């Protein structure tokens, strides 16, 4: 009788656990991270580097970073992965007075106005900045630097949809009833950027009209990209909001060109991923070296086939999977301050139409 023999043990174990947690918690208060005025001088340690990134940051890129620091500087990298970009930002925000991270890799425009406002990162202009495509430099002060980018647009399954729509107007045609998996702009970065794309295309006074016409063609709105793309690949709907680089994965690893980008008027919304040196970092020197390295040619060449995004350096040659479809000639991005000021309003108007 399992229970009977273990009952006393369970009881003791529970109590021991309780004491342990209480002990841990009373110590926890001493080093409470939100305690005021906990200033740590910059650059006092040089033998380690704490990196915060998101969970999906690929292994090859992680390995490249760790190996580089071990071989070049004899530095051990402590690479910590948070669940997603939202969790990454929140961790930085909650730890802002006594940060544990030295460098953060993987924020995007959604978070930038708050990052600047709170001073979560400090400016650092790496030497490699000269090699980076000037259109992608999101901050003139270099509080963050771009390290990869992709275009947010629709993707379509050519096996299910041999004759895709050719324009925004045609997309609202009743031929495509319940054919699109949308991502929620309130919970997903690509979803947010797709909404911004329609604002950029149709304007503040026109995007609502477009969404009103599009609504019957939306099958459902998912919370995140993973759920939405899952529905699309399962054949629930022939169109989904995704990246213009998504089809490259299927070409490279599945040897099929069935899944294709759907770009109207040569416009996609630029989703730029950035990295930055954390304000009050303990190892600021190593943080700067990390920024320098992720913009190096060596690191940038790993981006396409691991991250399935475009590298930010123009001198990196793209693999064949990335040149299979024509790129959007005029990608759009709205100024961060305009987005910060208006997004809640756009979102509320969008929700009013879609619900």
């Amino acid at each position, binding site marked *: 009788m399992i229970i009977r023999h273990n009952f006393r043990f369970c009881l003791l174990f529970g109590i021991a656990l309780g004491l342990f947690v209480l002990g841990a918690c009373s110590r926890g208060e001493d080093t409470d991270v939100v305690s005021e005025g906990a200033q740590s001088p910059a650059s006092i340690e040089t033998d380690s580097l704490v990196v915060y990134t998101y969970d999906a940051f690929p292994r090859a890129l992680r390995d490249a970073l760790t190996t580089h620091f071990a071989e070049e500087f004899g530095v051990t990298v402590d690479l910590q992965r948070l669940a997603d970009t939202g969790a990454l930002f929140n961790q930085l925000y909650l730890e802002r007075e006594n940060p544990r991270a030295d460098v953060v890799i993987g924020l995007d425009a959604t978070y930038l106005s708050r990052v600047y406002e709170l001073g979560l990162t400090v400016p650092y202009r790496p030497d490699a900045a000269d090699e980076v495509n000037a259109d992608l430099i999101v901050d003139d002060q270099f509080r963050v630097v771009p390290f990869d980018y992709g275009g947010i647009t629709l993707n379509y399954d050519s096996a299910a949809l041999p004759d895709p729509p050719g324009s925004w107007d045609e997309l609202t045609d009743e031929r495509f009833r319940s054919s699109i998996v949308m991502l929620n702009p309130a919970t997903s970065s690509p979803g947010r950027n797709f909404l911004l794309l329609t604002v950029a295309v149709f304007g503040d006074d026109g995007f609502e009209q477009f969404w009103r016409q599009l609504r019957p063609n939306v099958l459902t*709105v998912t919370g995140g990209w993973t759920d939405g793309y899952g529905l699309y690949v399962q054949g629930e709907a022939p169109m989904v909001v995704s990246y213009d680089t998504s089809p490259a994965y299927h070409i490279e690893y599945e040897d099929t060109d069935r899944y294709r980008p759907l770009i109207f008027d040569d416009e996609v919304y630029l989703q730029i991923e950035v990295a930055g040196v954390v304000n009050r970092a303990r190892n600021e020197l190593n943080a700067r070296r990390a920024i320098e390295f992720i913009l190096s040619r060596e690191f940038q060449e790993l981006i396409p086939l691991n991250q399935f995004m475009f590298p930010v350096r123009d001198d990196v040659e793209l693999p064949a999977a990335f040149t299979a479809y024509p790129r959007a000639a005029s990608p759009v991005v709205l100024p961060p301050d305009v987005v910060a000021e208006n997004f809640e309003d756009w979102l509320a108007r969008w929700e009013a139409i879609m619900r």
Partner: protein
Amino acid sequence: MRALRPARGGVDLRAIAAIAAVVGVLGAILVLPIGAVFFGAIRSDSAYGAKVLATLIAPATRRVVAFTVSQAVVSAGISVVLAVPVAYAVSHYHFPGRRLFYSLSIVPFVLPSIVVVICVISFYGRAGLINRLFGTDWNLVYNPVGIVIAHVFFNFSLAVRILADGWSRIDSRLYDSARTLGSRSRGVFARVAFPLVLPSIGTAFLLIFIYCFFSFGVVLVFGGIRYTTLEVETYSRMFVRLDVSTASVYALLQLIVSLCAVVVMNRVVFRTERHGRSVVRRRRPLSASNARWFLIVYGVLVLVFLGGPIVTMTARAFGSPDGFSTRNFRVLFQPGPRDWETESVAGAPVARIITTSLSLAGVSGTVTFALALMTAFVLKRRRTAVLEALVTAPMCVSIVTVAIGMRLVFAGIVPDIVLVVLAQTVLGFPFVFRIADTTLSALPDSYADAARSLGASRIAAVRDVVIPLVSRGLLNAYAYAVAIALADFTAVFTLGRGNIVTFPVAIYRLIGFRGFDRALALGVIYIGICSVVFFWVDRTSGRDIDRGKGNLVDHA
């Protein structure tokens, strides 16, 4: 039975120590982390009061609360109603495959929500089996109906197990008396069997209500933007719109609404007089039942409903453009090009995913169960409103918030793996506690009192008399403690810093890497392992019952 019983004569130091321990543990792993998250935000927001007011009076808030509550009520209600005949059959009759059905019914419960979504759409979806069989294009799931289907699929077994356990503790002599007094079998069900199981129905309804109340992924996929819940709003404010103040208002609303639900249900259901007598029922063959045809047809329909989505998902995992193939399973284990390998994408090879999942769930499940059992014993002796609220509180907060708070307060002091165990304890505690509490409070105190008056120590009375009588209910609680830990995604993902890889994490990462077919194959392996584990747990409990019955008969 009145649960509140005054302590005998003056101050009982041991009871106070036990209560202090429970309060301390829950306070440390729950209140402190949540306080840390919201206090930091609120402190730095001078307009907090205005924001609270604005959020509370907004019509959108009312709409979200109304939909969150109503979808949870409908989902829980339908789950429980559908479970009644199945639980009745499982606890009153024996038939081929009874134990196997009972064990495997728990499987949907351990699936991460993204797999539940995949299962449901592979059966009910637009490209699902039903539409392909009938050659139709029905939109069955992308509406509130889909939310309810997924929730019922997910929670059905919880209701079946709690009801079946409740019925199996009812003295069958009550039925005999009712028959002797002239009741027809329908009357016996309506006037005896059904009223007696009402406390269990209340427990099942409450637990499923809470699960659905906090539903996130399922609601978004099937409900779209039209039907959004408080959990979605909290997440959106916290992680995407970066307005922690407003997020805290929604989190507070979640707490208030779910606490109200719990209090109301406690008033309505748990005060019901209990007639439980822990006499093990003798099951009759199903063929002896007057309702056998109804039960058989009903059982088959339930099998299709529950098993269908899992079968179609399994079939898809074995599928390929050329028909049946084990390719998706082979590639899970094969080295591949660059970072495409399972080990690189998921973060661990399959063998280590299996050992990590099982050992972590074993430890977390045991800790949760021990804490819940201890709390149930404490509350059986002394039940106050404060304690009741405290043990209910973990139900009423979102685990994402708890996990972030834990990281904030404890990271660097306590190892990650311990934090994961603690977070999973918070996650499972209220459910395991409810099941243990329902089981224990159905047992009259007179049994333990009799043993004590015959000279047994308090521990011996519990160990030799109480535990054997309620072992089935407690093993059910233990099974759920393990199941909740196995299925957990949020705690591992938020607190594991990417280094702790369990099945839900690996499946999620594979899907995120577009390795969809491999993710399905891994899901099938996961389902297989869970089936074996829970079949084994139930077999152990089954043997216990038989032995316990022998003891009772001896003493009778």
